[in-house]
């Protein structure tokens, strides 16, 4: 049986966890700044840490791509723009334990030889922004940030930057454009940020949880981290359960745990109901059903079953939920958030929304199913960034698993589900 491994969440129940008093004295950063930066990159490579923002790219390898001795300024930008539907781990992490992030920023910046770092936090989370601002200020006051940190001769400035409401800014190149003061629209890659990122300089963009995991790896060693998880998906991660479960919440566990195990811990599906469909890693990852309860939640196993681990955002829906309605909502989200740069995404999400609205009202035809699949095929892989690709995931996967439910809508001329039954209060 897999058990939980609270590390990043380990101090969240302390009333002062968000202060240095409740966190600790940055021992890992102290140790790191006495090391050769390349040795730190090697430790993170050896740990097997892969990006926790969804894509799962090896973190140490990303750091290693930063050219050295190039005479250019280097930057670290923390992607704290958590906005993927279902994803809700970085926000409580920064609220309860912002110092793990700040300490991770120091170590990461030192490793990639950056003297300037940014935390780009989505703007719609005021108290989280307060906590991160306060943690950064506390670190400055202690001399953990600024000039000559720990007497090592290393200087680092860290700026907390609030976004202004745009899901697309979670895409790393859109985030960089936004941080430069422009509309947040993705850039064509290559060049990748490691070569031409912020201000066209070498830049690492890392997710909050990835950076926050670094101090524990430096403190406890690569082997300690690699001892958890699976062969290719090492370490722990925060699994976020939401929806029709008895005890939704944040469960920090080794990668490779299954939904069945997590549901056992969370008290199962809410009483009297059963699992219908779920997302393994947010709305951009193809949905799963009850047949996937035992799929190990690691990058490889989830991928082999046709979805993606993403951000471990497990949105759970029981049998009272209309899948067409959920897919319509996600599609409306993508249409709303498409930045408009690439035609397939901008136009495609708009038309998907129109057709799905018709389908949900029971006014569609079987041809509409072919149409939405065709539109999705024409978005997938045809835009600069992954937003458009993500928009196609709910379409393709829901038609695959729930074709009959789509058909039922126009057979009876409406939605066969009672909306009240799926609400928190409706089942009582």
């Amino acid at each position: 049986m897999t058990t939980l491994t609270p590390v990043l969440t380990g101090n969240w129940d302390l009333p002062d966890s968000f202060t240095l008093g409740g966190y600790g004295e940055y021992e890992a950063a102290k140790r790191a700044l006495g090391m050769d930066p390349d040795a730190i990159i090697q430790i993170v490579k050896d740990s097997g840490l892969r990006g926790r923002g969804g894509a799962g790219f090896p973190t140490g390898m990303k750091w290693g791509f930063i050219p050295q001795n190039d005479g250019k300024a280097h930057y670290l930008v923390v992607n704290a723009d958590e906005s993927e539907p279902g994803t809700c781990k970085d926000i409580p992490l920064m609220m309860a334990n912002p110092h793990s992030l700040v300490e991770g920023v120091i170590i990461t910046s030192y490793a990639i030889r950056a003297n300037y770092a940014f935390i780009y936090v989505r703007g719609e989370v005021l108290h989280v922004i307060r906590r991160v601002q306060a943690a950064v200020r506390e670190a400055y006051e202690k001399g953990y940030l600024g000039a000559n940190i720990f007497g090592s001769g290393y200087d680092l400035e860290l700026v907390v930057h609030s976004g202004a409401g745009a899901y697309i800014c979670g895409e790393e190149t859109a985030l960089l454009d936004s941080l430069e003061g422009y509309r947040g629209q993705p850039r064509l890659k290559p060049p990748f940020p490691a070569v031409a990122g912020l201000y066209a300089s070498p830049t690492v963009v890392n997710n909050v949880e990835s950076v926050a995991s670094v101090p524990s790896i430096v403190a406890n060693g690569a082997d300690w981290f690699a001892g958890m998880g699976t062969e290719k998906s090492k370490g722990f991660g925060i699994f976020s359960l939401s929806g029709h479960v008895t005890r939704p919440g944040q469960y920090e566990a080794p990668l490779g745990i299954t939904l069945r195990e997590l549901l056992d811990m969370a008290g199962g599906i809410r009483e009297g109901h059963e699992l219908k469909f779920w997302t393994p890693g947010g709305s951009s990852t193809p949905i799963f059903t009850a047949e996937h309860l035992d799929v190990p939640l690691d990058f490889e196993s989830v991928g082999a079953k046709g979805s993606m681990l993403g951000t471990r955002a497990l949105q759970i829906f029981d049998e009272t939920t209309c899948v067409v309605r959920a897919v319509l909502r996600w599609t409306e989200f993508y249409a709303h958030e498409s930045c408009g740069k690439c035609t397939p995404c901008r136009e495609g999400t708009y038309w998907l929304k129109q057709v799905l609205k018709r389908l949900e009202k029971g006014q569609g035809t079987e041809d509409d199913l072919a149409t939405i699949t065709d539109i999705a095929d024409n978005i997938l892989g045809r835009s600069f960034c992954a937003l458009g690709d993500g928009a196609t995931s709910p379409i393709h996967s829901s038609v695959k698993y729930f074709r009959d439910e789509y058909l039922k809508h126009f057979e009876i001329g409406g939605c066969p589900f009672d909306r009240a039954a799926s609400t928190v209060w409706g089942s009582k």
Partner: protein
Amino acid sequence: MTYAPEVRARLETDAKEIIGRYPRPRSALLPLLHLVQSEDGYVSDDGQEFCAEMLGLSKAEVVGVATFYTMYKRKPAGEYNVGVCINALCAVMGGDQIWEELSEHVGVGHDETTSDGKITLERLECNAACDFAPVMMVNWEFFDNQTPDSARQLVDDLREGKEVAPTRGPSRLCTFREASRVLAGFPDGLAGEGPSAAGPSLEGLRLAKANGWEAPKPGAQERGSEK
């Protein structure tokens, strides 16, 4: 109309501090727009002109950016920006019903403000608190686990000027302008209020402690996160 000289002087002092944080001035545009909202309650014409002057940009460049981001209000917003999450999960868990009943109760729709200038309603996309569904946000503070009744009560209390506190946040709710100032990077000293974490955020940790589950010991000295 332009800013009165004393207002202009105050804004300039703040703007220079913001610009000074960044290696390149234009990076200050988003916080400057938040600053303008903290003064005017929305991104006013004067405010955009001010941003352009401070950064040496054309006003068109500033407007082009301001119109891209949903948090920048194009017209005077209410004292309280009340949002209801209507993304898939919250909608299914009751957000749709909350929105419908609240909108009817208040008498305004999406991005509309009540005639007393108190409440602007907004249909929100996911705000990263899915384990607390259905979620509402007021001036970007969390109001977790809402119901149609609690939502009506919340808005009634706000309109009557009663003290209202977020479920995870400070003991007092800021106005929209005060919140915008924090977003511009000027802390209000409230970071220490409210819980570290609450409810669902602690479920996993609670269970781990009850069962004695921990991450493996590294053998060497334990670090701070082990508490």
